[in-house]
């Protein structure tokens, strides 16, 4: 029985590690803000995977509640961070176009960010 | 006792029939030639499948509240599915260029 639990934990934990690495790769290699945010959220999903896999105790025993509390907080924080980043991005776009209205369209990258 | 086993066999039959409709819906989603047919397969077959699944679980529901929730879930999915199919089809027919690249 404990063998079975260990296999499940390793499977989901390994998947979580993979998500984290994928997210890191995408976060540092892709320029647009929305792509960075998707990468950040997927990195978070990887961390949550590891935590929930650690809390798993098989089908017969209730899981450990402490990592669940951490993950619940983490989900809320991740959404707040996403919203904050989007608000910052919008503010940066507006200030940039206010400061240099004549070159708008020249230094615009194709995805809405600026140089 | 026999009534209970009969009920559970009926429940299993309903669940398996529901799974069959889900398979049919996915086959339609993969194989049908144009998007409106695919939308039709997805929204009709899957809803029948979910209805049969809900019926099968309803036959084994431990309490009244659980049964009520099951029926409520199916009704919500029906409403969402009808609305969604209508919206997607309308958008497909108007063929606006927002994401036509």
């Amino acid at each position, binding site marked *: 029985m404990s063998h079975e639990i260990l296999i499940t934990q390793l499977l989901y934990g390994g998947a979580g590690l993979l998500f984290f690495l994928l997210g890191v790769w995408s976060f540092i290699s892709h320029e647009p803000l929305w792509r960075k945010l998707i990468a950040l959220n997927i990195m978070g999903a990887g961390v949550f995977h590891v935590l929930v896999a650690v809390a798993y105790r098989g089908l017969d025993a209730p899981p450990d509640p402490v990592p669940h509390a951490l993950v619940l907080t983490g989900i809320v924080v991740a959404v707040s961070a996403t919203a904050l980043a989007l608000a910052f991005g919008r503010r940066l776009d507006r200030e940039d176009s206010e400061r240099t209205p004549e070159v708008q369209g020249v230094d615009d990258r194709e995805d809405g960010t600026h140089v | 006792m026999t009534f209970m086993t009969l009920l559970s066999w009926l429940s299993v039959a309903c669940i398996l029939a529901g799974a069959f409709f889900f398979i049919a819906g996915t086959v339609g989603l993969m194989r049908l030639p144009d998007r409106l047919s695919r939308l039709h397969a997805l929204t009709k077959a899957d809803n029948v499948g979910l209805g049969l699944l809900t019926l099968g679980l309803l036959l084994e529901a431990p309490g009244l509240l659980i049964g009520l929730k099951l029926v409520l879930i199916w009704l919500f999915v029906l409403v969402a599915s009808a609305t*969604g199919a209508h919206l997607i089809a309308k958008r497909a027919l108007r063929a606006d260029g*927002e994401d036509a690249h």
Partner: protein
Amino acid sequence: MSLSEIHLAVALLLLATMSIGLIRVAIGPTPSDRLMAAQLLGTSGIGLLLVLIPVIRVPALIDVALVFSLLAAVAIVAFTRRRDGEDA
């Protein structure tokens, strides 16, 4: 015990159909195929959650299924909304 096995087999089947449908959603030739993602995940995901209840032995999953059914409608409406400046 065998009843729970049947539920698990049906759950596996539903997951397989959902994965295959998601391939269509991801590669879909038209944007409309992509919009069907929420629809597909709504119905198949709710069926999966309901069948998973006797397998996982967590009765509270039915509330998750209820939230899924409400969220599917919201997601579809959010996907198909048009931009402000666009006509119709």
